[in-house]
């Protein structure tokens, strides 16, 4: 018997159909991955199940009964708990309060019993094999612990269905393993888990079944073991496996290298990265590989002058330089597209055009203004060049999908005509199709003689795209591979040590 079932659920937003009749079901005691690209309708479906908004048509059955939850709280009372992507907890309150708030144990007089609250919190955490001081503020713990606290809270009610929406996006490898252990334990106990993620490996590591959505429609539900990975990707983006192979094969590595563009000898920063040599030639793509926290992004920040280096020397096109501020790096035609585009990149309430000209305007200085016509021409040029999907350059950037936002950011820096382009996790959180496009774009740029430093936590991408790879572990360079030696196996070996 299915614990949860949706029957031809539809949802319309202002005339746009976000869900077009989705049938979906989850059994008790299974981990069910819900897959789809951005905009496929995953979040909408989850929000209908948890009562964030009502369905336009169709029905939801839980435990055999039709239900119409009016709020997440309603759903929680029925036994459906959700843990959201960004940790949605209260950082300045204690761990115990975060687990118990709204359902604290009370004394006979109706007052909260602080002691019982701690006991209850410890019990909830013990179920996940966590033993921490529950009296401390939540913010004093790592994101991984906070995520587990959120799960502990979700389980603290009589929960039968647990929905995990991108729970691993900010966790490192070990933390992900811990989370999976917890998920498997809960599965043994008979809990149903809906698991949403962008990471394909993780899907196969824990899921029993996989349901794929595309453009608001159900593509199908499959047993994980019967669905080869390439087929899953194909179903997600609506292309055949052959077409995907072609897309990936279509990424042609540039092989013509010019002179050294940027060279650093022994640059480092105490407490951030041990001294390391970095050099990259025109037309070359240099990869920085390593686990989260291995020093990948830190090196990018040092090169760009965000965190100035305190040892070593650098040269740019043969001239000695000292990038101790981003302005200096920008002047020397270096561009950095930073990791978290929401925080350090896009300005959501400006248009695409305004977002694109930003860096160029900054490097020109405030006195050298561009006419509106020039700006429009520039925006249109890059929209075409990078195949940004938008009706016009006057669209607000916040209305674009993640992949297209990323392209606008790349356009912003391309507009300054850089010699060295540093891309920190450019493919994070964007869908498979857009990833392939961004990858082939960087190759094209290399072909035009740009030097590129590419940082990604997905090793396949590094292997596919880079001509040389510096491997990092614990904030130290542990090796370098080039040409034919670049393979998943070799890089993994170096990372593992």
């Amino acid at each position: 018997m299915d614990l949860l079932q949706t029957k031809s659920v539809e949802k319309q937003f202002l005339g746009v159909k976000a869900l077009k009749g989705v049938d979906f079901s989850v059994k008790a005691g299974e981990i069910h991955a819900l897959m789809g690209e951005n905009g496929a309708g995953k979040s909408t479906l989850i929000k209908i199940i948890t009562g964030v908004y009502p369905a336009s048509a169709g029905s939801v059955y839980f435990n055999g009964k039709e239900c119409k939850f009016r709020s997440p709280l309603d759903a929680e009372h029925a036994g459906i708990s959700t843990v959201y992507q960004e940790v949605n907890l209260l950082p300045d309150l204690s761990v115990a309060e975060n687990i118990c708030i709204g359902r604290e144990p009370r004394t006979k007089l109706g007052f909260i019993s602080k002691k019982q609250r701690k006991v209850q919190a410890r019990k909830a955490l013990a179920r996940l094999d966590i033993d921490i001081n529950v009296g401390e503020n939540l913010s004093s713990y790592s994101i991984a612990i906070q995520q587990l606290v959120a799960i502990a809270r979700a389980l603290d009610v009589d929960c039968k269905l647990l929905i995990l929406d991108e729970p691993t996006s900010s966790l490192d490898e070990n933390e992900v393993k811990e989370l999976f252990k917890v998920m498997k334990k809960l599965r043994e106990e008979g809990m149903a888990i809906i698991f949403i993620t962008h990471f394909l490996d993780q899907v196969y590591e824990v899921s029993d079944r996989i349901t794929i959505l595309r453009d608001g429609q159900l593509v199908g539900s499959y047993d994980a073991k019967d669905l080869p990975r390439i087929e899953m990707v194909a179903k997600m983006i609506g292309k055949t496996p052959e077409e995907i192979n072609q897309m990936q094969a279509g990424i042609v590595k540039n092989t013509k290298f010019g002179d050294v563009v940027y060279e650093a000898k022994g640059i480092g920063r105490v407490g951030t990265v041990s001294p390391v040599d970095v050099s990259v030639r025109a037309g070359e793509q240099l990869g920085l590989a390593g686990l989260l926290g291995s020093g990948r992004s830190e090196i990018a920040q040092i090169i760009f002058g965000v965190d100035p280096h305190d040892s070593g020397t650098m040269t740019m096109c043969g001239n000695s330089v000292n990038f101790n501020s981003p302005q200096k790096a920008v002047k020397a035609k270096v561009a950095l597209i930073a990791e978290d585009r929401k925080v350090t990149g896009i300005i959501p309430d400006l248009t695409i055009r305004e977002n694109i000209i930003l860096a160029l305007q900054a490097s020109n200085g405030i006195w050298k203004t561009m006419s509106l016509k020039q700006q429009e021409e520039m925006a249109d040029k890059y929209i075409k060049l990078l195949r940004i999907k938008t009706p016009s350059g006057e669209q607000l950037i916040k209305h674009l999908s993640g992949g297209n936002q990323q392209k606008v950011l790349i356009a912003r820096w391309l507009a300054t005509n850089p010699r060295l382009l540093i891309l920190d996790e450019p493919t994070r959180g964007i869908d498979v199709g857009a990833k392939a496009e961004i990858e082939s774009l960087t190759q094209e740029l290399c072909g035009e003689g740009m030097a590129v430093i590419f940082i990604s936590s997905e090793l396949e991408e590094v292997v596919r795209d880079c001509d040389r790879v510096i491997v990092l572990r614990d904030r130290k360079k542990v090796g370098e591979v080039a040409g034919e030696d670049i393979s998943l196996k070799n890089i993994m070996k170096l990372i593992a040590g």
Partner: protein
Amino acid sequence: MKQFKFPMRYVPISATILVFFIVYLIGIICFDNFGSPKVFMNLFLNYAYLGIAVIGTALVILTGGIDLSVGSVIAFTSILIAKMINTGCNALAAIALALVIGILFGMLQGWLIHSFSLPPFLVTLAGMFFIRGCGFIVSEESLSIQNDPVFSFIQDNLTITLSKGLHLRFIVMLYVAVLIIAVIFSQRTRAGRSIYAIGDNELAATLMGIPVGRTKIMTYTIAGFCSALAGVVYAIYLKAGNPLNCVGLEMDAIAAVVIGGTLLTGGVGYVFGSLFGVLVLGLIQTLIQFNGHINSWWTRIIVGLLVLAFIFMQNLITKISKSKSKSH
């Protein structure tokens, strides 16, 4: 043995208490009579009305909101009570009506803020002008309350004489009682904890199933009640009402809350700290009165500097705890 670690969250309130004792010590060293119980008692007597108003402000600020109508509500309720008594109305009825109006006014502000997602700053700014005007409609001039049996009863019978010349007045007892209730409410009830949750992260609170709207309206209602009660206390204290009184008092209230260790962005702080916020304000004023030579406006300068210092301290603590969680 477990290593003792002083929790970060107690730092601001400890700093407030420390400042209080330092200022008190300065007073004792500089002036002979400063340490006498009478001076201390007067501090409570003179600032009971402010203290009660500050409790409401503290709760509102803990939700991440603000209430600018405090001073106007105090003025309105005090003149309303004075006017009603002067027209022959029973004082208790007048007080009851004033409190009901305060409650309804706060509830209305909370409802507007929640239901239409309006900024609390603007809604309570509008409320401030509105209720200040209402005070002048009641009476354009100040009215004194004389020979009222209820007020005389409060004065004569509801006072505990501790020793010769040292009296524990009704309004001081009232302030302490309200403070104790507010502390227990904020720390030990679900509604009280919801206030903190909303101020910490409203979206998270909503997703955690906390009744955000209800809690917000409740908080502004409590603030309205506190302001009205402060008006009642003010009328008892001065035996008069004046529509011009307490202009800008809400700013003193906010300053007391900040000095009391509460974060203006909400979610962090203690209602109990507001007591010390008020006492520090009062002590500085008293200190300058004792001196007699210094221009009394120096109080404001010192309060300004103190508020700034506390904002810097909060800022620093936020940064430290952030870097701590990173290194975990």
